[in-house]
């Protein structure tokens, strides 16, 4: 009894304390940022905490306190689902090109006011207007998005587990020799992409038959993959839990930092080039604050810190000119800079484009088909049947015994 009373007392003391804390924050403006996981310098191991730096900078500039609420997604599709559910609002999202196109077509983005983003001039010219976006104002910039990072998909493999002779193409991910050691993307577009590149199909095809072909290829692969994962790849590849994984090039460098047995290549059949860009959703309640955030992220200190945290290719001039950045890149691996910026793969790489609604529904259905296509091993059947028979036996046994006893 005593312990309960004391616990209630503790609760009663704690509750107002906790409330007073939360009340003090109410006047502070909040900025909701929704970004990819592992995609911003977060202050770990002595690097800059970009979000905190923004809060401080904003306070210094305007005298207003602001709080960044930062959350992460692991695929464009997840981001879209959350944003379109209509029950959660964000001020900044960072989707990839094809998803920006979709958001724009569905009228979910707010046009940017470049007066609030003077640092946009830091963006390399060829990235100022993305394929997926338009420039109606003729000011030389995209209307809805500002590129954050770009990169390509390639294959990461563990040199201690994979034969050198097997590398070079997408076939490695279908090689039965490495059964149980292969990781595939856990999002429809990227996963289908790997199969489409392998088969030489168009990744933006509107022909359902071609998508079916890709599905068949993925089905064949399902038996030999260890799993479908996204950012879990980091731990799995670094810890040697898997040998082969297709993932984003920048992340390979981050993994290489922790495990030097890893290596990387761009498959010869071609691969995907993506540009992730910052956008402001229409539902944002703090558009100017969001633009201030974008502007801040384009300035030198956070941009370099983010680039050195993610190792993705940066479309930002101040990053490319920074000595600190070059040194940082070269300190991970001699060819890190080449890998990200100067490779032949860049010339043959293609981008995903947004597809019409019916096509998206088809991809969704095919993905569901792949995920729900499960083989049930005979052992499981045998075990289950055994259990059911045992249960039935018990049931009958008890019922009969009960009847016999009742007869007495």
């Amino acid at each position, binding site marked *: 009894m005593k312990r309960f009373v004391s616990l209630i007392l503790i609760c009663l003391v704690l509750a107002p304390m906790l409330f007073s804390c939360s009340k003090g924050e109410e006047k502070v403006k909040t900025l909701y940022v929704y970004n990819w996981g592992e995609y911003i310098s977060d202050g770990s191991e002595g690097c800059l905490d970009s979000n905190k730096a923004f809060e401080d900078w904003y306070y210094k500039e305007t005298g207003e306190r602001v709080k960044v609420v930062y959350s992460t997604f692991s695929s464009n*599709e*997840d981001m879209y*689902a*959350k944003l*379109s*559910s*209509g029950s959660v609002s964000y001020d900044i999202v960072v989707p990839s090109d094809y998803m920006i196109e979709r958001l724009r077509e569905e009228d979910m983005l707010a046009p940017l006011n470049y007066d609030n983003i003077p640092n946009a001039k830091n963006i390399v010219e060829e990235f100022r207007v993305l394929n997926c976006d338009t420039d109606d104002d003729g000011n030389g910039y995209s209307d809805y998005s500002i590129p954050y990072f770009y990169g390509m998909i390639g294959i990461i493999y563990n040199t201690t587990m994979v034969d050198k002779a097997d590398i070079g193409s997408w076939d490695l991910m279908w090689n039965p020799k490495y059964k*149980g*050691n292969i*990781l595939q993307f*856990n999002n429809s577009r990227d996963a289908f992409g790997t199969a489409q590149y392998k088969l030489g199909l168009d990744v933006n095809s509107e022909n359902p038959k071609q998508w079916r072909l890709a599905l068949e290829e993925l089905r064949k692969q*399902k038996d030999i*993959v*260890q*799993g*479908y*994962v996204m950012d*879990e790849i980091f731990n*799995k590849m670094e*810890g*040697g*839990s*898997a040998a082969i994984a297709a993932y984003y090039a920048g992340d390979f460098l981050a993994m290489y930092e922790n495990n030097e047995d890893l290596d990387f290549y761009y498959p010869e059949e071609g691969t995907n080039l993506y540009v992730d860009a910052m956008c402001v959703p229409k539902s944002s309640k703090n558009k100017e604050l969001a633009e201030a955030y974008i502007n801040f992220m384009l300035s030198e200190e956070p941009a370099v810190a983010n680039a050195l945290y993610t190792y993705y290719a940066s479309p930002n001039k101040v990053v490319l000119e920074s000595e600190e950045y070059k040194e940082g890149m070269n300190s991970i691996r001699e060819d890190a800079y080449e890998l990200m910026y100067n490779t032949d793969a860049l010339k043959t790489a293609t981008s995903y484009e947004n597809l019409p609604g019916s096509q998206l*529904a088809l991809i*969704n259905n095919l993905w*569901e*088909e792949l*995920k*729900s*296509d*499960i*083989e*049930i*091993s005979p*052992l*499981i*059947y045998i*075990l*289950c049947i055994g*259990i*059911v028979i045992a249960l039935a036996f018990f*049931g009958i046994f*008890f*019922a009969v*015994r*009960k009847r016999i*006893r009742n007869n007495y």
Partner: protein
Amino acid sequence: MKRKSIFQRMAAAPHIVWMVMFIVAPMLFVLYFAFTDEKGRFTFDNILSLSGYSNVFVLSIAFALIATVICLLIGYPLAYFMSKASPRTRKLLMVLIMLPMWCNLLIRTYALMALLDNGGLLNALLVKLGLNKLYIVGSDFGVILGMVYDFLPYMVLPIFTTMTKLDKRYIEAAADLGCNSWQTMTKVVMPLTVSGVISGVTMVFVPSISTFYISQKLGAGKIDLVGDTIERLFKNTSTYNVGAAVSLVMMVLIIISVGIMNKFSDDDGGIIV
């Protein structure tokens, strides 16, 4: 009897309002979504489209069944031995069995995965001993193992509680009447602890059949159970309807299986009396 006062009659009112708003209404929403399409028209398509998920359902039921039986086979003797210990040890064992229950499931599952992963500690040890690696993560065995590991305490605790409550005199009487220890076990202890077993089985079976975190981690996203399917379908606004249908069917399945189990316990109650 006196007429009830307004206070007494109205005491349950806030609860009833709350219940209707937040228990009944959400369930009606599931029903509504399960039988309509995206535009809100009545349809059976969602239910019919579940045939594509038949394997998922079969596998989930199979895994839950196997995990429950393994938990029972491991947990029953454990509870029995625990109940035989001295009162002080019993208290300590009780704490030890409750600790994993109170620890978050995510933490335990993740710890298990980190230990068993191909590059984890277990395989590092095996390699050092010159043995072959065990590929557990991403296999059926891994998922079942995860369920057993996570839910074993839920099986042990109710059985253990009924065993400690069990009147020692029954066992003594059985021994006096000439039962050997095996007969005492099957004729006295087991029938008297059926209620504990039933609640243990329910507490293992229901979370096992609906889990998604265990299959995500130990099945590496490759083994898709009903829980994963629901979670994935509810990530996307355009698949809410199918998701609701899957949830509905799972709910019905669970009601049926819990009903069957309760039937069992009723029967046995009859035997004892």
